[in-house]
């Protein structure tokens, strides 16, 4: 078959062997087709003198045109150990990812590495990770309130007024400081992040998070600089993690998400010594 299975005692991941992309996730007694891709928004270069036509910059996300989804065949290598299983994906010269399962840990880890974002075509770029599932979420999704409760969001709507949504993508982006989730009557899909990011659900069953941005124009909201970090002359490389939890919709799934959040943010600090000076903990 064209399937590659990577699994531990709790989670089963199925990949499409010929393309290297994730296809299905099974965990917590639930199975769902979940496709994960990286995608690129081209940063708008507008006229900052017109309020609704500003450039994408440090303060605002404003894409120009449609998103480009990197769904082509990707290179990958699988490392299958007893403690940890890893799928190393090589998307292009500046995007890669490790999808990881630790034995006994009930979440899927996506460790992404993006950058330096090329700008030789004179376009700013904003890179997202996108998870597409079959969940019928009816335009509803949830984002956290600075790590506390979850707030219900609805595509193209606001809680207290009827908006005129002129920006179909960024008009539906919300801050995600801890998690973003969606559900239908059967299943719930949640993403937990390791840093504050922007995120949205622009289609039913789909979640996305903004990972890295490199832009060539200032958006005229105050900093007076383009978001174009040129350390080492080439732009920044960013590395981080997104954790995925798939669960039943009815079994208080947010408890598992909150516990996972505590583990993700454990303040472990490692110290190293030479073992010639072996110590004993008092």
């Amino acid at each position, binding site marked *: 078959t064209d399937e*590659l299975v990577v699994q531990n005692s709790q989670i089963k991941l199925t990949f499409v*062997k010929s393309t*290297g992309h994730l296809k299905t996730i099974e965990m917590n007694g639930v199975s769902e087709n979940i496709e994960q891709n990286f995608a690129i928004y081209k940063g708008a270069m507008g006229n900052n003198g017109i309020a609704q036509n500003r450039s994408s910059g*440090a*303060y605002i996300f404003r894409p120009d045109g449609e998103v480009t989804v990197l769904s082509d065949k*990707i*290179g*990958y*290598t*699988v*490392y*299958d*150990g*007893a*403690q*940890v299983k*890893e799928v*190393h994906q*090589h998307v292009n*010269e*500046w995007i*890669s990812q*490790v999808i990881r399962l*630790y*034995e*006994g*840990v009930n979440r899927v880890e996506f460790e992404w*590495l993006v950058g330096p974002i090329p700008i030789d075509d004179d376009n700013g770029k904003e890179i997202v990770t996108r998870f597409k599932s079959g969940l019928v979420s009816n335009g509803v999704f949830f984002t956290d309130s600075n790590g506390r409760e979850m707030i219900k969001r609805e595509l193209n709507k606001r809680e207290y007024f009827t908006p005129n949504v002129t920006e179909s993508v960024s008009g539906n982006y919300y801050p995600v400081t801890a998690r973003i989730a969606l559900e239908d009557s059967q299943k719930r899909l949640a993403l937990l992040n390791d840093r*504050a990011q922007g995120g949205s659900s622009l289609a039913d069953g789909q979640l996305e998070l903004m990972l890295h941005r490199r832009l060539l124009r200032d958006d005229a*909201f*105050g*900093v*007076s*600089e383009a*978001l174009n*970090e040129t350390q*080492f*002359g*080439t732009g920044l*490389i960013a*590395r981080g993690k997104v954790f995925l939890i798939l669960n039943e919709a009815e079994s208080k799934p947010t408890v598992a998400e909150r516990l996972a959040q505590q*583990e993700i943010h*454990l*303040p*472990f*600090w*490692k*110290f*190293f*010594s*030479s*073992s*010639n*000076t*072996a*110590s*004993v*903990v*008092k």
Partner: protein
Amino acid sequence: TEDLDELRQVMGIMQHHDAITGTEKQAVARDYDRLLTDAMVDAQDNARAALRVLTNLSTGQFDSCLELNISVCAFTRESANNVVVTLFNPLAHPSTQFVRVPVKQQQYLVTDERGRAVPSELVPVPWQVLSIQHRPNDTQHELVFKATVDKLANYYIRVLPSPKALQRFERVHSLRHDRNRIEPKDE
């Protein structure tokens, strides 16, 4: 408390909305890096002093690795033969985590304080991480093991002479594109 106060002060500066959202000027971002790095490095002395109290060591090295986020640790690179990893858990209950330590491609044995072998595995660092500029290229693997920590725990890493004790990863499937490495460029 001088070093800790410095760290507290810098953490206060990092609550500014520009530091939180990344809307500071580039020169300010670099200054934030400088302040935070200096404060963290100085506060390591406090951590070392505390660890000396908590262990029987009077002159413990207790090196920290601020580049673990790019899978780099100068200490384990240079003295990988006999390393003690000390883990401090500030929570009020025991906690379990998988520890990843950048090492050279050798065969290792990890033991706990009682000398019991702890299962460990060696995983390659993803090649794109390896190609990051200014990253030393001789630690191309990470040693992974599961640590259970009540308050403080020591794990001992030793290089094994024979290939037997290491549970080496089995590469089950591989499909690669041509790997055109990004050539380093001078600034």
